[in-house]
């Protein structure tokens, strides 16, 4: 008979305040198999774990149940703890009497205690049936994939490459650089964004360990940690990258002008183009939708003028599949399209623009060469109004969260307006000013004191055009009266939202995402750059709105995780995989069709039946591929397949324990 030890945790007052832990511990002694039961303030603490180890020695325990928080939180901790006490690390089960009990039944202590007992009883019934399991090893491919070539992707790739691993960066735009390439200055130091970004872009482009796959997208992801088989679609650039020298002649001569997405349609680019002058790779791409040659078959000037003969209209999309050990997702963010909501007339009045538009206007390589001009009549604005929290912190518009970086970049914009237009009047409508970084608050105060920005605490209700000027109608809640400003230019700090394709990419990778399609980290505090899918890491705004310093920090953190993974040729995998009882398996193949990871195949075995040697087929599970979902065990009618650590017998024991 198994000797089970039950350890009921108070978790300070989190559990103890509602659940009568001593009573639960005492009741646990009646459960079959329990020989030792105790309650303690902090089971996960050092003394708590020591207590478990001591109890295992003294009472010759061979199974342990810890009734405390969610196994998603401390299952690892207690598995390592029992391993330290000489038991197989899978001889521990947890009863979640905090998140699933004390925290949600605070008003009903007796019922919560009774429920805690039931949960402990279920855990004991299960742990009695736990079998010893050893972690298996699987190979790790020494190659990393970074999806997204913004600052986060570049930084992660550089750190991984500098650690000696090969990295591929997949970027859907023709050039890496992401949103940061569009920005003029960065807060709080006001140093120019391109000056700190382009060197990193060049370093990434020239780094021997880094391959840039620009104008490409991830098509399919298969396999699992250490062995991700990723199919990448390299969209046809119609330019032969090896031959092209980037001289730019074709871009000059191309007759077709198209709105430049990089310049947010405030200036034109050609059909054959590089998004911005410092683009890396600095080799153009033909926009097949707008190129006359691809639409009508005429023109072809670019191929005629090209000295290197690099233009190749016949180029096709290319699909290549590579195996990677780890993946860093760094696809960044998009700005919330505020034209959907008419109050501010964004999209209707040309002089109502977003922060990114402003960055381009104030950028030296922008459409107005750095002079702030109104998109409508190119005049220099005198009254500039900034509006913060446009879409953010506004559940009615669907974005309940704060976008974190707008307070700082709006203050920066105010500074830039003052620097460029001495006699301008700057108004900033805000609800709160959030300056959560080093030097941030000082920077904000400078905009108020030195640069004379008028911060008006209140929301803007309506903007409308009156003649040349925009009437901004709002309210000054500190003075308690409505405010009306005749503005020449209105800049909206719109919410940061997830990239439009974020949901599909998440489903390809099998990682979670929240209601706003930002990716879900494994744990907000303890594992901010990991995902629940082992081997897939997050960096930058795709995990949630954040500014550049934080994105870079996350990128290096993700890189550290990747290097930790890739530094080993093999890695231990969870032994929670299916196993086949070949004597029972009839070889019907139902499981083969159902396995999402194609980890099961039918193999032929020979057997002596009634005096004959007979060949027959049975299922066989590839422990490396199997991820332990258990779907096959239900497809198998004769229960020949069982999932280790979640066997039919264990689950049945939990069900039976619940009711007897």
């Amino acid at each position: 008979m198994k000797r089970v030890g039950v350890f009921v945790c108070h978790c300070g007052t989190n559990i103890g305040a509602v659940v009568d832990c001593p009573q639960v511990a005492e009741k646990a002694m009646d459960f079959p198999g329990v020989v030792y039961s105790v309650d303690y303030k902090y089971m996960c603490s050092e003394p708590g774990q020591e207590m478990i180890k001591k109890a295992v020695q003294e009472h010759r325990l061979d199974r342990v149940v810890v009734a405390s928080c969610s196994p998603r939180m401390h299952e690892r901790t207690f598995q390592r703890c029992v391993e330290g006490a000489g038991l197989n690390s899978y001889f521990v089960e947890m009863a979640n009497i905090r998140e699933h009990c004390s925290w949600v039944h605070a008003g009903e202590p007796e019922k919560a205690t009774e429920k805690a007992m039931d949960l402990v009883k279920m855990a004991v019934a299960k742990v009695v049936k736990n079998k010893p399991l050893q972690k298996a090893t699987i190979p790790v491919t020494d190659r990393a994939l970074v999806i997204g070539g913004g600052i986060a992707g570049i930084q992660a790739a550089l750190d991984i490459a500098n650690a000696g691993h090969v990295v591929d960066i997949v970027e859907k735009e023709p050039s890496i650089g992401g949103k940061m390439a569009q920005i003029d200055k960065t807060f709080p130091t006001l140093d120019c964004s391109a000056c700190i970004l382009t060197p990193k872009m060049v370093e990434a482009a020239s780094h021997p360990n880094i391959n840039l796959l620009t104008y490409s997208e991830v098509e399919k992801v298969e396999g699992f940690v250490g062995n991700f088989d990723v199919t990448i679609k390299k969209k046809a650039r119609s330019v032969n990258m090896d031959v092209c020298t980037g001289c730019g002649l074709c871009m000059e001569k191309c007759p077709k002008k198209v709105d430049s997405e990089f310049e947010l349609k405030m200036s034109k680019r050609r059909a054959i183009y590089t998004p911005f002058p410092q683009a890396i790779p600095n080799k153009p791409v033909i926009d097949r939708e707008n190129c006359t040659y691809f639409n009508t078959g005429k023109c072809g000037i670019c191929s005629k003028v090209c000295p290197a003969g690099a233009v190749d209209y016949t180029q096709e999309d290319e699909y290549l599949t590579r195996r990677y050990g780890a993946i860093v997702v760094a696809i960044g963010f998009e700005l919330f399209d505020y034209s959907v909501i008419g109050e501010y007339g964004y999209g209707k009045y040309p002089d109502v623009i977003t922060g990114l538009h402003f960055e381009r206007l104030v950028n030296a390589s922008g459409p107005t060469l750095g002079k702030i001009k109104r998109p409508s009549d190119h005049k220099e604005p005198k009254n500039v109004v900034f509006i913060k929290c446009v879409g953010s912190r506004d559940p009615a518009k669907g974005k309940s969260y704060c976008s974190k970086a707008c307070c700082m970049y709006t203050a920066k914009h105010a500074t830039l307006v003052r620097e460029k237009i001495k006699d301008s009047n700057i108004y900033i409508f805000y609800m709160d000013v959030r300056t959560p970084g080093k030097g941030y608050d000082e920077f904000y105060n400078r905009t108020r004191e030195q640069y004379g920005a008028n911060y008006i605490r209140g929301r803007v209700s309506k903007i409308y055009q009156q003649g040349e000027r925009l009437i901004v109608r709002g309210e000054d809640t500190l003075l308690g009266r409505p405010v009306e400003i005749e503005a020449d230019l209105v800049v909206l700090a719109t919410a940061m939202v997830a990239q439009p394709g974020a949901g599909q990419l998440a489903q390809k990778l099998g990682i979670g995402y929240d209601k706003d399609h930002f990716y879900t980290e494994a744990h907000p505090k303890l594992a901010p750059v990991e995902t629940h899918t082992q081997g897939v890491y997050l960096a930058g705004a795709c995990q949630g709105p954040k500014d550049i310093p934080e994105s870079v920090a996350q990128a290096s953190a993700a890189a550290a995780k990747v290097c930790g993974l890739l530094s080993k040729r093999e890695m231990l995998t969870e032994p929670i995989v299916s196993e086949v009882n070949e004597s029972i398996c009839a070889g019907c193949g139902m499981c083969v069709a159902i396995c999402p990871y194609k980890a099961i195949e039918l193999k032929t075995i020979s057997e002596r039946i009634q005096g004959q040697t007979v060949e027959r087929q049975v299922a066989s599970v590839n422990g490396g591929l199997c991820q332990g979902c258990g779907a096959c065990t239900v497809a198998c009618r004769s229960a020949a397949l069982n999932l280790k650590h979640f066997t039919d017998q264990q689950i049945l024991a939990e069900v039976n324990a619940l009711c007897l």
Partner: protein
Amino acid sequence: MEDLTLVLRRTAKEILEKGEAQMVIGWEKGAFWYSSTSAFISKPEDTERLIWDEYCVNNLAKYLLDYRHKEGKVAVFVKGCDSRALNVLLQDKQLKREKILIIGLACPGMKDEVEARKLGRGSSIPLYKKCRECRYPNALNYDFFIGEDKVIKEIPAQDDFSEVQALESLSPDEKYNKFVANYERCLRCYACRNICPACNCRECIFDRTASGWSSKANNVSENMFFALTRALHVAGRCVGCGECERACPVNIPIMLLNKKIIQDINALFGEYEAGTDVTAKLPLGGFEFTDPEEFM
């Protein structure tokens, strides 16, 4: 049907003599006038015992499982429902098609043995209910066919789910009363499982109490667990041959559960006739992204 019996015997004799198969499985007259049992003939002269009359109701397909490791081939006579059963066994990879010689027949429908016993010889005896509703009287998958001219033409358009719908309209308690009334009688003799072609596991979980799924106790609750589990196991593979009902010593209307599932599979995932196409994907063997969504 007299002349076909002679054709049957001659065919079986030729097969055995030419060595095309080592054994022929057919029917022979049983102890009573109203029952024909299965016959396993391996010597040419014994083929005289073979007959084809209105009482050859036994589904011979499942016997092939006992001879699947025998060298050479085994020949078997199949009616419509038998050939569907055989297809299911092939779909479940339990039989190798090349080791079987299938001789198809057109089935005029078999007479109800129980009625025959009651009404006595000479009176007109009705067909089995399953034969009256049968939509596949002619063998589907065969190497050769006996009685080409006997092929049955008029066939009911779709299955008859009236009994199922009648039961569905009752209140929960009424339904449960009927369900209990039926399965109180169950002896757990497993005859229904033993005769069912869709129940082809090497070792059934109900024979292995170690699996923890069920106990030997013969109470209503365990009987219901067995009945519902078996219904779910054969879901999407039950060909509606009705042998389970015929084999049940206490006459439990087992097909009521299977027909309910067949009706739901048709309604939810599109029409599916088990055992009519060996290459078809089993409805509960996969999924579609566009399955109906009820759990949002």
